[in-house]
């Protein structure tokens, strides 16, 4: 009766060979049927086990079982291999081809720069504030210590509107200083990004519409040193850690003392310059405090403002402000 047992190994070897030889999944299934199917040779041999004497059956069962496990493993291995083969394309994929994109849009560069500025200020506790773009003389000029015949108005060529209630377009975001101080008590800590308007013909450095950011801090004991520290922090956040800041005396009607801010970094030096003017600032003029009903003896503060386009132009190396407003998609997609 040892005949059956003797047949197991050769049959297992044949089955293994047949399985391994299958070139694809259907052939593998055929080979499996030929050996392990209900009518398969291995199954048939196994059925003969019933004819063995009772005492030989456990050994035979064990042998059959081991062979079956081994064949199943071979089958699984072959199946995995042939499945991979079946899944692969006929020709290998050219991974250098461009993929099918799900395209993300881009935020406008001015938005990105504004967000960066806002983020830097918010780290110091500033809240974003806002005010109307259609303004009146009081908020845009008078309360900022720039009455009608003031020479400082020369640089603010103003657009006027046919609406008597709001007769002009704000020429700077400083108007929001007044609006906020009129409605909130100190301390004040705001930044105001927004659109402003000047009656300049468009050219490479002018657009009648442009953006500014205004910062205002009013509290007890605020100093020029605090202003400088804040400006340095914000510009290092924006323009890189190597940024150097220089303050120069200047004049604005609503701050006293007033300063202009120059900055320098690798970008500026690449332009062949030592310094680039970037912002104006100063300590809030006591007259402005009086105009909004704050006591200048108790409160002090600083304000500063700068052009967002200018920052964006320096940051990205853009040489024509009109690009921001033309919105050529080839331009927008670069940011």
């Amino acid at each position, binding site marked *: 009766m040892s005949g059956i047992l003797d047949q197991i190994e050769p049959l297992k070897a044949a089955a293994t060979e047949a399985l391994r030889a299958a070139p694809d999944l259907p052939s593998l299934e055929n080979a499996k049927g030929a050996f392990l199917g209900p009518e398969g040779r291995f199954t048939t041999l196994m059925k003969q086990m019933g004819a063995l004497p009772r005492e030989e059956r456990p050994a035979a069962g064990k042998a059959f079982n081991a062979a079956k496990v081994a064949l199943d493993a071979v089958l699984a291995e072959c199946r995995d291999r042939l499945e991979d083969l079946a899944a692969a394309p006929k020709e290998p994929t050219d991974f250098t081809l461009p993929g099918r994109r799900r*395209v993300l849009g881009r935020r*406008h560069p001015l938005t990105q720069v504004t967000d960066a500025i806002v983020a830097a200020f918010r780290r110091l506790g500033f809240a974003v504030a806002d005010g109307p773009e259609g303004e009146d003389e009081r908020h845009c000029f008078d309360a900022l210590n720039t009455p009608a015949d003031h020479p400082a108005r020369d640089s603010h060529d103003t657009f006027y509107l046919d609406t008597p209630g709001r007769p002009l377009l704000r020429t700077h975001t400083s108007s929001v200083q007044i609006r906020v101080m009129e409605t909130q008590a100190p301390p004040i800590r705001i930044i105001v990004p927004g659109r402003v308007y000047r009656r300049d013909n468009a050219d490479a450095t002018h657009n009648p519409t442009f953006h500014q950011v205004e910062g205002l801090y009013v509290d007890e004991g605020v100093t020029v040193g605090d202003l400088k520290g804040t400006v340095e922090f914000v510009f290092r956040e924006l323009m890189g850690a190597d940024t150097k800041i220089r303050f120069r005396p200047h004049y604005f009607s609503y701050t006293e003392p007033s300063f202009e801010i120059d900055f320098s970094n690798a970008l500026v030096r690449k332009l062949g310059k030592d310094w680039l003017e970037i912002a104006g600032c100063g300590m809030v003029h006591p007259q402005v405090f009086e105009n909004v009903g704050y006591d200048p003896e108790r409160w002090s503060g600083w304000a500063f403002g700068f052009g967002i386009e200018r920052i964006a132009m320096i940051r990205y190396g853009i040489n024509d402000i009109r690009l921001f407003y033309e919105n050529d998609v080839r331009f927008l*997609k670069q940011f």
Partner: protein
Amino acid sequence: MKTTLNWLKDYVAFDWSPEELTERLTMLGLEVEGVDRRGGDFAGVVVAQVVTREKHPNADKLSVCRVNDGKGERQIVCGAQNFQAGDKVPMILPGSALPLKEGDKEPFVIKVGKIRGVESHGMMCSSEELGIDPVSLGLKKEDGLLILDPKAAVGQPFAEYLGRGGADVVYDLEVTPNRPDFNSVIGIAREIAALTGNALKVPAATLPSGDGDIAQSLAVRIDAPDLCPRYTARLIRGVKVGPSPGWLRDRLEKVGLRSINNVVDVTNFVMLETGQPLHAFDYRLIASGGEAVPTIVVRRAVDGEKFVTLDGKEHILTSDHLLIADPVKAVALGGVMGGRNTEVSEQTTDILLETAYFKPSGIRKASKTLGLRTDASYRFERGVDPEATEQVSQRAAQLILELAGGRLVNGVIDAHPAPTEIRQITLRHDRVNALLGLTLRPEEIECYLASLGLRVVNRRPRPVDDAAVAEPITFQVPSYRVDLKREADLIEEVARLYGVDKIPSTTPRYAKGQHAFDTRYDELAEARRLLTGLGLNEAQGQTLVSKGSLRGRSADSVVLLSNPLSGDMDALRPSLVPGLMDILRHNARRKNADIGLFEVGRVFVQQNGGVREGWRLAVALTGARSAGFWSGADRDAGVDLMDLKGLLEEFLEHFGLRGLTWTRREGDAGWYVESAAIQLGGKVPLGELGQVQPRVAKSYDLRGPVYVAELDLDALLAKRNTSRGYRALPAFPAIRRDIAMWVAESITHDAVMQAVRQAKAANLEAVEIFDVFRGKNVPEGQKSVAYALIYRSAERTLTDAEVNAAHEKVVAHLKQSVGAQIRE
């Protein structure tokens, strides 16, 4: 304001290099906008004297000379024949270049070299080589070297010998409106003096005694003291008007002024020097009218009065304008420009010299209304020194006497009805330190202010008894510092002189700010993030648009500009759509065909005489649906309305808006082929979307279909619900039943959905449309639609029988209410 390095050095000693001066002025608040180095004419050319002249050993026509250049002797080989030892000639030193002549590409630089074996260290020059006309200099035209006046000083720079300026550096300075005193060379020198501690040397005017008494020759009457608080006049008779000397012409020309004649040049020079504008009249053209003597009347113009200024232009005046007149006629637009009728000319012999103080606001108004801006009006409108008129008059008179001759008429008329108030400002030292963040000692602060000419007039005890702080000090402000009005102004002066750069920065304080807009800013940012995530690029359009481009959008309430720059930009946008269309056009013209853009921005409409500003969101789509790809059947598919709607649905859902309705609008002839209103809960209007009419698109150079949408962001934000809640995931399987049916074209998806809902089928979880088809086998006027209905219970697995029963109800209801023909 332009000045030069050498000019400044006339008034104050300093040894800064030109670059250092730039830096110093900048850090004082006088921004240097331009630095122009002038080499000076004839650089390297000096007056030299021939000491010996001998024949060249190797050449018949050349001579070897020893020449004295003022510093020593040098050997020069020369080819000219017209000179001898002892002659004085211009000589150019090695390393210098001859002036460029027509046709020269590069300057000819003189080098040390051997000529026929003999070394030559320079070149003696002919008039041609120097490019000058000897006759105009009073010299003989020679064939050969230019032979100079025997009295010429050996070693003198040739330019100086000619009376022309030497090398200098011209600074173009940006003067801020608060510092009119910087509109003068002395004003700038004064700051340098304060910084260096060196003395300011103001030229002292000492007038010779003259003839007669001015009162016998002139009277001044000020009828408008509100516009002209002070008028000072002097007379000089018998002058000879002629060209100015070289130094004066050079000074004026370096700072960009044209030389006119010696008298006018003096008035301009003194204006630049002192900041006080002056005017010279031809005295003999001033009438006495009925008065005893010629009389200057300072008065307002009569409405409609005409006046011709020096530049030949006629102005029609109003009573806002100030005239300098005699009893018969006007002779000048006070503080702005003189009149043609009394202009100083070659025939003028007697000069009436005016120095006056005009009120800034009056001059500003006159200059603006007449569109006439002069060096004088510019200075007056910013405020000149009201105390300077008499001194400046003396300085100018002295220079006129020096340069144009003549005799002074003794005395001066100084009409000064209301003397200017002396300004005093009290300063608290602790306030200086508190604001600047410094710890300056009181003496330092006083020292800075004293260096600027502020004088301590009073020290008074502090109101509070605190020994640690200094007493407040009252300073008298010099009359030329019209900008110093209060304590803060003095603090700025201290900061400037201390050095703004030296003020230490401190770690920024953290303080919590607050404003209602703060959260709004984040919401707008979130909207932008979502929209870019959906593949749109963000645009930022112009706020100013053309009224003509609005095509009826908010036509009645558009806010117009009163002073537009052009018709392209004469209105504030009442909608973002026209601006987006402009942007599409810009892209179309540059062959950017596939565009998906959005803009988040403000729009403006009139409301009760004011402006209502609102935030909007607009989207525009045109061209291909997806990014270019190299395979696939639908790769060339263009966008359509459903792309736009789907994009908006996705955006609105993520932005926190549910329960929207999209209602087709009948007609919108201005813009759309087809459009729909978007509403919340069927009543709150949120916006619109639609396909732009081809004729509108074409007007923007757009050929393919264009889809736009605009949403009211304010309404969106007001109705936003961003709360999120968890719902348990289903524990039991769903059963799907499909319905395919024909319905009339007029039956909307919404109607079908409503019908399904009305059937109230048990356990119906969701309904999804998965096919709409028209054409083959579908009867005309009908469409084939297919829906998947998903049934599920939260408590148990449903049986086929109960799902079938529920589904039958739906089918029956669809047949009945929307006339559906069910397909198998």
